[in-house]
């Protein structure tokens, strides 16, 4: 595979560039590094980056644009680029050369590149869904999609594909899941960072994090086999709220458990980062520890906590397995939390992996659902950003 060989050679050149450039400037400065504008290692990095980056970019671009073509010319070109970069770096290496600035500019470029991946991903997602959503709305009225209250896809036409019951299920289940995970997670985080001994915290935190790593199918089966029947027998039936084994409540509760570490671990880190002097200030005024936490520490940690809650909410919205097994597949709008309902995400998955013709509205609706969900969560995030801006208490 010439590509991986080219890669290796480029990296080796970069490594060599680092060492040579470094040694060269030190020699030029007569061994007295104080005469250099930048530390020797910056000169080294400058050479390494100049050698590696252009060549790597070339290979990456080519890999995406022309995957099947003959790699040899590209490999040669890449090597030439690397050699040229190395040469330039060595040529420029001099005590007065602002290697740090050069390296930092390159690193900043890399940082920007990394951030743009998020944008590219979004663009990719939107475009890959927009197209098919367009097809969907050619075949199905948007009015019925957005305002229809019935979800019943059929084979061979006549489907009713109203999003409202799915949306309602999504909101209902997510809210219950958050109602479980946010208080538990937050209290756990507070306890770990404010009360617990280092020992307990060292054990409890990773243990709770295991909850995030248990495959969702385990939660799903737990919901289906244990929690569902329990809720039905001890709550729903005695209260006369129906006798459905799978329900919004089941899925919400179980999902809530899964989400605990999302809230607790992230919040714990953020709470822990609040400077001790703020706690001292509050304690010195005679607050109890809980008052200190509630009135001083939490407001200071708000942005991170909101981030954690949003992440948990995002997972709740995106979860399938627990909903399928815990809440059933019934698209329904109902206030009774002991009834089966379902979510948008579940239907995206099931319509995409189903038996319908892939050009049929029953399949294409998955894309419309995905895009709608995207827009809704976008709104949610904007609100969250606004809230954080408004209530953030910046310490120091």
């Amino acid at each position, binding site marked *: 595979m010439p590509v991986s060989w080219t890669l290796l050679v480029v990296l080796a050149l970069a490594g060599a560039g680092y060492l040579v450039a470094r040694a060269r400037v030190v020699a030029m400065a007569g061994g007295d590094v104080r005469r250099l504008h930048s530390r020797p290692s910056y000169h080294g990095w400058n050479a390494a980056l100049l050698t590696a980056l252009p060549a790597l970019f070339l290979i990456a671009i080519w890999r995406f644009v022309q995957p099947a073509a003959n790699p040899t010319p590209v490999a040669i070109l890449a090597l030439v680029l690397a050699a040229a970069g190395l040469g330039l770096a060595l040529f420029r290496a001099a005590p007065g050369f602002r290697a740090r600035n050069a390296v930092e500019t390159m690193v900043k470029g890399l940082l920007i590149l990394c951030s743009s991946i998020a944008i590219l991903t979004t663009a990719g997602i939107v475009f890959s869904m927009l197209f098919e959503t367009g097809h969907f709305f050619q075949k199905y009225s948007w009015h019925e999609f957005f305002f229809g209250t019935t979800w019943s896809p059929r084979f061979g036409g006549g489907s009713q594909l109203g999003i409202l019951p799915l949306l309602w299920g999504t909101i209902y289940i997510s809210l219950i899941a958050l109602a479980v995970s946010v208080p538990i997670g937050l209290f756990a985080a507070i306890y770990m960072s404010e009360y617990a001994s*280092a020992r307990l915290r060292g054990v409890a935190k990773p243990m709770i994090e295991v909850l995030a790593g248990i495959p969702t199918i385990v939660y799903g089966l737990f919901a289906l086999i244990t929690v569902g029947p329990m809720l039905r027998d001890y709550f729903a039936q005695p209260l006369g709220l129906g006798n459905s084994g799978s329900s919004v409540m089941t899925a919400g509760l179980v999902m809530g458990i899964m989400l605990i570490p999302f809230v607790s671990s992230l919040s714990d880190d953020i709470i822990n980062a609040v*400077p*001790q*002097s*703020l*706690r*001292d*200030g*509050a*304690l*010195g*005024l*005679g*607050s*109890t*520890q809980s*008052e200190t936490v509630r*009135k*001083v520490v939490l*407001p*200071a940690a708000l942005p991170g906590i909101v981030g954690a809650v949003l992440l948990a909410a995002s997972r709740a919205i995106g979860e399938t397995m627990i909903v399928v097994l815990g809440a059933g597949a019934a698209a329904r709008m109902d206030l009774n939390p002991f009834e089966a309902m379902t979510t948008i995400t579940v239907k995206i998955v099931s319509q995409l992996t189903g038996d319908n013709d892939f050009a049929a509205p029953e399949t294409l609706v998955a894309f419309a659902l995905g895009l709608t969900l995207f827009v809704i969560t976008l709104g949610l995030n904007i609100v969250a950003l606004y809230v954080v801006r408004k209530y953030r*208490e*910046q*310490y*120091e």
Partner: protein
Amino acid sequence: MNDMRLLERSVDQSEIKIAARDVQVWYGEKHAIKDVNVDLLDKTVTAFIGPSGCGKSTFLRCLNRMNDTIDISRVEGKITLDGEDIYDRRVDPVQLRARVGMVFQKPNPFPKSIYDNVAYGPRIHGLARNRAELDEIVEKSLRGAALWNEVKDRLNDPGTGLSGGQQQRLCIARAVATQPEVLLMDEPCSALDPIATSQVEELIDQLRAQFSVVIVTHSMQQAARVSQKTAFFHLGNLVEYGNTDDIFTNPRDPRTESYISGRIG
């Protein structure tokens, strides 16, 4: 030993607000306070002086158990407030700290509005029956700390956006607003200009009428001006404790003497 000291200073037992007996503090291995015995009197300003790093802040923090929050610190000995051992297991440090307030060496305003910073204590202790009373407490405290004029138009701005000296005064106002019986002030005027300093000193003098105040200061002049009693610390030891006048005019320990005479300007 106890008796001896009492005799020596001819202090009436009832006047003692805080008494420390054989207090030792360690930070991990470091022995930061060694065997300190002292009686702090009610309705009196006591100054703690001594070179930087000698343990003044450490000892101050023992008096309202703020040392509890430092993991590696360990306190031994006995400290009583009104005769009750504050390190007793049954003592609630929260209640203790409400009675023994503190201004820290590094100003640490809450990342809240100036108003909320000052109103924090009164709110949690329920010192105001209504908003008007709270406003009044806030204003009075800020006036006392000589900050009112500078911030009265920006009470809703964050306390963290103040200048260094303003933050320091904010923290004083915040502590005063809680109306503690004993106020521990760790270099409360270090970032203040002479005028603000004199205003704060005036405040301390007013407070003395009802409460007792302990002030850590590096300024011998300030100690002489505001305090009635002075304690000189050196390398974790309480070297000398007595009437401020005596200490400054007639120190008995050579170390005190040399510290005081090293004074400049």
